[in-house]
């Protein structure tokens, strides 16, 4: 009996793996649609508004100003001595930009399916799994603009850019992998659970405070630091600052942890989505 059980579990895993492979393949076969929808999403976000793409620049700057005034000027928070910059503003924005990218992407992913119920219900063979991916891809573009602003600010405040800065593209890659996985889980769950959006809002808000964004990680009590380090965004923010501001190599353990969490989330998200997908048209 236990033996047959194990065989069953093995079969299930094999099946999950096949689902995962098929899923990844479908993403590739639908690349034209993916590109088209991403283009369109970006245009919808920026074309037609008065300032257009300028918003992608204005937003991080405005955030930097608000948080900078409150935490830097009122609360006199200081950056890590080891962070490589004396400017709290730069320190802050360097954590804020990747966090905003993550938070916004995850939040809008949760809506990705419910917003497009028409397609899911009426189009034959619609690959609904690309919807969260489209959301992630279009936020990556906005994020890259934010990163460009960040690089310019770094040059202004620090005077130079370190070659280690290039490593942030590795981080971006893993955030994308992570958010696509989360996007699949959240978007498919929110089809069934309307309350998910509210809960997600709370979690994202808490995440902002429990990730060392506007305060240095050195302020976290050593006893609970390991809990904070479970949060993959901890390593992203740390990595952005180390490579970009301090010009130092990233913490390898942190990067490996991020990579593992991202890939596992991606795979689990894919399988999860695939399992829930057959019921979408009925519930939406």
């Amino acid at each position: 009996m236990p033996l047959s059980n194990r065989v069953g579990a093995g079969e299930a895993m094999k099946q999950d793996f096949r689902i995962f492979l098929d899923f990844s393949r479908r993403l590739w076969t639908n690349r034209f649609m993916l590109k088209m929808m991403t283009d369109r999403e970006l245009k919808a976000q920026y074309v037609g508004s008065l300032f257009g793409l300028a918003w992608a620049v204005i937003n991080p700057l405005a955030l930097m100003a608000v948080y900078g005034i409150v935490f830097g000027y009122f609360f006199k928070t200081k950056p890590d001595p080891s962070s490589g910059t004396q400017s709290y503003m730069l320190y802050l924005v360097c954590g804020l930009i990747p966090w905003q990218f993550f938070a916004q992407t995850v939040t809008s992913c949760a809506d990705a399916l419910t917003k497009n119920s028409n397609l899911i219900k009426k189009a034959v063979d619609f690959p609904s799994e690309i919807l969260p991916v489209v959301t992630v891809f279009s936020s990556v573009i906005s994020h890259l603009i934010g990163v460009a602003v960040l690089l310019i600010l770094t040059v202004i405040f620090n005077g130079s850019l370190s070659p280690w800065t290039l490593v942030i593209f590795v981080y971006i890659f893993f955030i994308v992998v992570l958010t696509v996985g989360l996007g699949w889980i959240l978007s498919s769950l929110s089809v069934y659970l309307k309350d998910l959006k509210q809960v997600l809002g709370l979690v994202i808000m808490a995440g902002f405070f429990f990730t060392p964004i506007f305060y240095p990680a050195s302020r976290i009590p050593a006893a609970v630091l390991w809990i904070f380090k479970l949060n993959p965004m901890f390593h992203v923010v740390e990595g952005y600052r180390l490579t970009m501001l301090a010009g130092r190599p990233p913490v390898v353990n942190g990067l490996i942890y991020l990579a593992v969490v991202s890939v596992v989330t991606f795979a689990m998200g894919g399988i999860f989505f695939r399992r829930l997908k057959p019921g979408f048209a009925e519930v939406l």
Partner: protein
Amino acid sequence: MEIAISVKNISKSYRLYKAPPDKLKEILNPFGRKYHQEFRALNDVSFEIKKGESVGIVGRNGSGKSTLLKLICGVLQPTSGEVSVQGRVSALLELGAGFNQEYTGRQNVYMNGALRGLTKEQVDEKLESILDFADIGDFIDQSVKTYSSGMYVRLAFSCAVNVEPDILIVDEALSVGDIRFKHKCFRKIESFREAGKTVLMVTHDIGSVKSFCDNAIWINNGKIEQIGKADAVVRDYSSFMNYGLVSKGSVALKDTKAQRGNEVSLVQRGNEASFDADIPWEEVSHSSSFGDGGAIIKRVAFYGKDDFKKIAILEGGESVVFSLDIEVKEALDMPIVACRLDNKYGMHIFGVSNLTVGEELRPLNAGERVVVNIEFVFPKLGNGHYVIAAAIANGTNQAHVQQHFVHEAYIVQVINPSVAAKMGHCIVLEQTWISLMDSK
């Protein structure tokens, strides 16, 4: 012949909850108590559609037609059973394909193409013919949420047919298009059939089932009521819809080959039965009527002169009988019995009575029960629904008193496959010639 669509014992049930919180209660209930009621939209439905066949699905609202199409398209999953489809499917489900409301028409065309696995270049190639067919002008660059329902369906249909599907599924979509577009669509569907492609359509337009489909499936309350040749299925469905009756001898057939013919009801008619008993009477008490009440029309019947089979649909040219079963309350010395046929606009098409025939009926005595048969050859009329009114009066043509006049005593539909009958004209001419001569 290859099978294009095969449906095996599929059922689809929905869970209905009294209130949204019940759903959560059911999930959280530790004892697995059920809070839902099961609704069976489809119940053990099986059939096969061969490649190149065109099939119409009829049934009243809520009978499960759209659910069936969605299951075939794979948009919904069956609760049990199996659906297998061979070939590329293109579908118009519930008034329009899956368009993204925010996208412009053009963007939706590209997305639709991408959905069906076309590359940008391939869509580019087809774009002209798609826009041409849809014919919505500059609106193509507006977002589709600004479209009228007609424009929406034009574009959707155009996309669906121009991507060269093997199977075309159309759900009721054409009903919002204007007449010109409908004709265009039907021509397209026709060319699809000629190209040996499979067409599956749901429609309430009985006429198009008759003219465009080889076979038909009638679904009632989630089950197949009848499946077979389009003519036969439509005839029975139509009489069911008009009178709430399934004609005698109609059985749910699982086998496509089995067909019912006239001989079934002929066998059912006993030879010894009286003339009156053979008439397929219909009660008229539900119809609105007026009159002095000197005589009451209890029942009417409209049937073939030779086979005594009730007529719900006819082509024109048949010898028919309209019978009235009259209960006489007061003596009528100069009775007039008549029927009149009106089209759906209330226009009087023709009337027959003993006055028009030039025959005097004998005086009727109080308490008598009589049957009056009016025989005529049904003229060739344009396709559509017609209402037959029945009346009994007393007096002369110039001065008579209506005793009982029943407005909608009987409803009949004309479906004539000839082109002339589909043009929307009242009358269809039979012997017409057209010649072309050289003028010097």
